């Protein structure tokens, strides 16, 4: 996986850009997209179980496949008052996660994105698993998005005041 900093920064940046046009991408919904963006890594529970000697990786690997992650999002969305919108925003985060994970170098096989319909693995084999340059890049992009959005908001505020 690219680390969670990358997933969260990309999810936030995408929502911030979309918020210029779509008011639905308010801070609360953006947080949901950010939560969704690390959902597939629920599989990392296996790191904790490995510490106590249990290898559950293969048993919960479905968490890191779209079908499993969307089911997980469905379960979590039940805990929200606005279930449908919670599910949609979580799902958007999940999609950003898989798009980023597609970049990873996978020696054996890629992700079976269409499991259980197909076992074909997909990967672009571009970025090593533990690369931190992508983290720096994602944070830099998020900073640029933040600064630009502040500037746009300031201009909007000034325009409204002069009118």
């Amino acid at each position, binding site marked *: 996986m690219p680390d*969670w900093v990358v997933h969260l920064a990309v999810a936030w940046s995408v929502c911030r850009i979309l918020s210029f046009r779509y008011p639905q991408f308010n801070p609360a919904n953006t947080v949901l997209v950010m939560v969704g963006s690390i959902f597939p890594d629920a599989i990392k529970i296996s*790191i904790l179980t490995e510490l106590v000697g*249990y290898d559950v990786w293969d048993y919960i*690997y479905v968490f890191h496949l779209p079908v499993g992650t969307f089911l*997980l999002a469905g379960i979590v969305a039940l805990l*929200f*008052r606005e279930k449908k919108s919670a599910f949609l925003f979580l799902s958007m985060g999940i999609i950003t996660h898989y798009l980023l994970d597609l970049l990873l170098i996978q*020696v054996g096989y890629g992700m*079976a994105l269409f499991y*259980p319909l197909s076992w074909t693995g997909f990967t672009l084999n571009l970025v090593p698993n533990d690369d931190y340059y992508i983290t720096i890049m994602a944070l830099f992009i998020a900073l640029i998005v933040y600064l630009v959005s502040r500037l746009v908001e300031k201009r909007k505020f000034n325009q409204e005041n002069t009118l």
Partner: protein
Amino acid sequence: MKLNTPLKRMVTGLILVAALAVLCSNYATEYEYHQKYPSYGALISDYPEGEVVNVGGTVTHISSSQFQILENYHGQNINLSINSSTPVNLEDQVSVVGILGPNNTIIQVERVEVNEYWKYLFLLLRSFLAVILLIFIFYRYWSFDWKSFEFRRR
């Protein structure tokens, strides 16, 4: 269907959990048959000597032309020797595609990827910090109502 009562939500949740469990079980039993290369399951059951396999694990021993990796496969520790001069350090995570020889040895490496241990720890650390920040932000915009057992916008 409107999921406005706790019972309906619980039933829906149980159905989704059951579907997830079925998929997890199916994946765990089937995935090895659909991999591009055989892995540890095949190594244990019929040892495909001479075939290209895909294995991975933690580096436990290094010599000049070989290193050893250890993998906990479903509770069973498996040691493999990799004939390769790829620079590795102890505790690094290695993933290898190569030809399986006798005595749990990969005699010819076709592809290898090394994830350095310190980079892995650094990745865990920054991910941990990121999730702490996310929890903080989440509770700034959402609160949990215990009466209705659901998250609401603040």
